[in-house]
């Protein structure tokens, strides 16, 4: 018994080392740095332990507060859209019809394109002079053209549109997998009982999809909280800080300004927010599983 335990441990060791090196060490290091004042461009100041100072600064930093609001707004607008559209796409892809294989492949293209490339594409689409967006809305009438990337209200919308376009297929993929685990007998039974299509969807499909939907929700929330590449390519945080999401703000602090301590505090903040949300989701996921088995 004991020797088999030891063997199991040996087998696990490589992955443990891997996770420790690439997951726990960086997280631990960020935590540690966030308690220091460390400014790369001013080496004579040294690395000074400042306790909670970076965190108290962060708490009172109006830019960080606005950044948090921008990020949360991004999360709560993109996720319902992604889930709604993704669910719709999955339901279509789950039907049997000609060309289904092709459709399934095509739908995944936005997810497969590297974000840097697709954000460049959206930047062109939203260009105020030559962009497709203005052309579709106003045709050749240049006097009415909007400049979405230059407007503090429209600029976050452009990022949201690009994000939903990119990640709805991902949600669709997870939901499709969920749909395929639902046995056909349930639908047969429901239709024998005289349930309409809507009733079948409402009382058979949705409840059984709940774990898949929650999983998609979990992935998407964590990902949306860390949104970075779209902002980096499309707006660089502007105009008027309207798209300055937390990850981008932290990136600027560490990589452009060299403020390693403060930037790490921002990173830890993002980490904690996503950790709390993940724990809440996991709790819900667990209880929904238990419900499933209880029935």
């Amino acid at each position: 018994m004991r020797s088999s335990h030891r063997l199991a441990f040996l087998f696990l060791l490589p992955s443990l080392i891997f996770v420790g090196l690439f997951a726990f060490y960086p997280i631990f290091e960020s935590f540690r740095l966030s308690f220091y004042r460390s400014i790369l461009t001013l080496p004579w100041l040294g690395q000074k332990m400042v306790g909670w100072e970076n965190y108290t600064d962060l708490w009172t930093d109006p830019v960080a507060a606005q950044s948090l609001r921008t990020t949360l707004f991004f999360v709560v607008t993109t996720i319902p859209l992604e889930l709604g559209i993704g669910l719709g796409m999955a339901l279509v892809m789950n039907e049997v019809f000609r060309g289904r294989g092709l459709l399934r492949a095509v739908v995944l293209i936005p997810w497969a394109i590297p974000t840097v490339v697709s954000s460049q594409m959206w930047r062109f689409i939203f260009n105020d002079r030559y962009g497709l967006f203005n052309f579709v809305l106003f045709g050749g009438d240049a006097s009415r053209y909007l400049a979405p990337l230059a407007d503090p209200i429209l600029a976050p919308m452009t990022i949201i549109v690009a994000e939903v376009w990119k990640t709805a297929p991902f949600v669709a993929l997870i939901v499709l997998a969920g749909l395929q685990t639902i046995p056909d007998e349930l639908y047969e039974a429901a239709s024998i009982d005289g349930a309409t299509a809507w009733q079948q969807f409402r009382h058979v499909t949705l409840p059984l999809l709940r774990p898949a939907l929650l999983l998609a929700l979990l992935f998407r929330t964590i990902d949306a909280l860390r949104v970075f590449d779209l902002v980096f390519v499309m707006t660089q945080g502007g105009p008027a800080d309207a798209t300055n999401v937390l990850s981008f703000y932290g990136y600027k602090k560490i990589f452009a300004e060299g403020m390693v301590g403060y930037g790490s505090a921002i990173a830890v903040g993002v980490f904690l927010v996503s950790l709390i949300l993940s724990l809440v989701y996991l709790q819900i996921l667990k209880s929904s599983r238990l419900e499933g088995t209880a029935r």
Partner: protein
Amino acid sequence: MFRAKNLCRIAALLFLCSLGNSFAAESPLRFVTWKSETAQMWDQPIADFEKQNPGVKVIREIGPQSSTQLHDLITQKLKNRDTEMDVFVMDVIWPAEFASAGWALPLDRFFALAEQKQFLDAPIRANRYRDQIFGVPLFVDAGLLYYRKDLLEKYRIPPPRTWPELVQGAKTILAKEKDPQLVGFSGQFKQYEGLICNMMEYIVSNRGNLWDDQKLVSTLNQPPALAAVRFVRDHIIGEIAHRGVLAYEEPESLVLFTEGKAIFHRNWPYAWSVANDSQSSKIAGKVGMMPLPYFPGGKGAAALGGWQLAISRFSKKSELAWRFVSFMTSHAMQKRITLGTGRAPARAALYTDREVLDQLPQLGSLLETFKQAVPRPITPVYVPLSNIMQRYFSSVLALPDTNIDKRAAFAARDMDRVLDLVREAPAP
């Protein structure tokens, strides 16, 4: 036992081989820079250098075109003490930061004072930090005003000397041309480094400044700076320039001008050859160029830009690196690069060179502008200060209802906090 011995031998042999290798062919010199549209900028000079130095290979690593993004890439390498980067290009605002952080090699032992005197003074000063020099200027940039000569002549409007004259002239032409596609002005007002250059030109030409370099306090909330910012918000953005400029960097704003859709345009010297190239420009031959306007009572101010070559402190080949840097910045090479690319050289003598003036007659008249160009204040905390100012400028320009005085006071307070960090800098 036998096998172990053999293994040892093989290992020793391999080790010796690798040593021999590193002696035989010198490892290449690595040069990090941005991409150029023409081979005359980097490829040909590098090929010449390799020809002159047999056995030396220069590997050019291409970084992003945007100065901000290139800064992040190069500082990332320097932070990691990357020995794989020997020479890099340096924007005019970086030397103080790179010197303070101990990333750029001081070049005083290579770059004699007499040699420094051969260059324009403004870029040399920008490369100095605490009595040491950290880069060799390659070429200089300064903000200039471009205008549509044909349109101004058509309506008998003289080239504007002051900003209010420019606004008035643009409005007159716009009213008479009645072209919905035409705008009065295009410049760079996106939230990025270029915004600082543009706004500094308005502020300094109104006798203000970004901050006081001696007292280390922000001057953004002083009346001249406030008035200049208010002028841009109330009379330029959304008035003679469409609001789209709030997302424009140099390329987008230049395209608007070369497509014939803008009357006035603020850009760097390179825009002259682009705007006059009939292949890419619809207004070739119809372009005028002049120093930037000023506010009544002020003096025209062009932001100093430009690129330098610097050597990494972590390079293991500083001697060879210097040979490359001095080759690229030599009189002969600067002349070739100038003739090939139309960029403004950093060596003063080239502004009186017959051959250069024959091909680029505008350079002669630009010398004065370059000599008087205003550098952005020199400090190792430039980037955090720039980010605070970008935030302030972008907010007041993009949100017309914001209270400029209040925003400026906040920005100034944030800047003062950053400047306090360098107040007690130790002597070198």
